[in-house]
């Protein structure tokens, strides 16, 4: 399936892009992030991130579907 992945803050700098199309067979968001850690060398484990799917916070065991937009969210620091 084809997914769209959004990167923010340090992940964006590391990936070198704010978003990319990813072809993946991962069963869920956890699997997708494991793939992307390998590809981009992200240092943060999933326990430090939150994930959003199609604009809403989701769990790491969220099953992904073709066309989903997945956002990887490092610990926030607004305010």
């Amino acid at each position, binding site marked *: 399936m084809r997914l769209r992945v959004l990167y*923010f803050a340090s*992940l964006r*700098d590391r990936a070198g892009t704010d978003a990319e199309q990813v072809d993946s067979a991962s069963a869920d968001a956890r699997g997708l992030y494991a793939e992307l850690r390998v590809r981009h060398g992200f*240092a943060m484990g999933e326990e430090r991130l939150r994930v959003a799917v199609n604009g809403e916070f989701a769990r790491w065991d969220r099953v992904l579907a073709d066309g989903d937009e997945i956002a990887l*969210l490092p610990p*926030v*620091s*607004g305010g």
Partner: protein
Amino acid sequence: MFLLCETPIDPAALARALTHAGAGACATFEGWVRDSNEGRRVVRLDYQAYASLAQAEGARILAEAREKFAIIDARCVHRIGALAIGDPAVWVGATAAHRDAAFAACRYVIDEVKKRVPIWKNEHYANGESGWLHPDNTPVAELS
């Protein structure tokens, strides 16, 4: 009303918009860009947001504040983009008949915004370095 804005925050205009004849108390909070953090000299900041989710989560926080506290209104505006020292980065205002609720709601909103809303701060230091703040006790340098 939770808004992300790319232009300077105008606290006076925001407070005026809260005017209500039944409001006896208005508590506000402004977060300003400081010239130092954790002992390092900061020269400017960038804020980045996941805009659609930030707006949705900010609106949820304001709705929670209205449910939890006897307020008339609560609003929050957060800057994104490049900020200089002294610039307001975030503004929260809450009105109520009485001050207990106004203070409590104002505090609730800024605390939750800082915890939950997908916005990130990149500090630029006097020595030319910069780094995203991911406030979970991890040094900036090790983050990505």
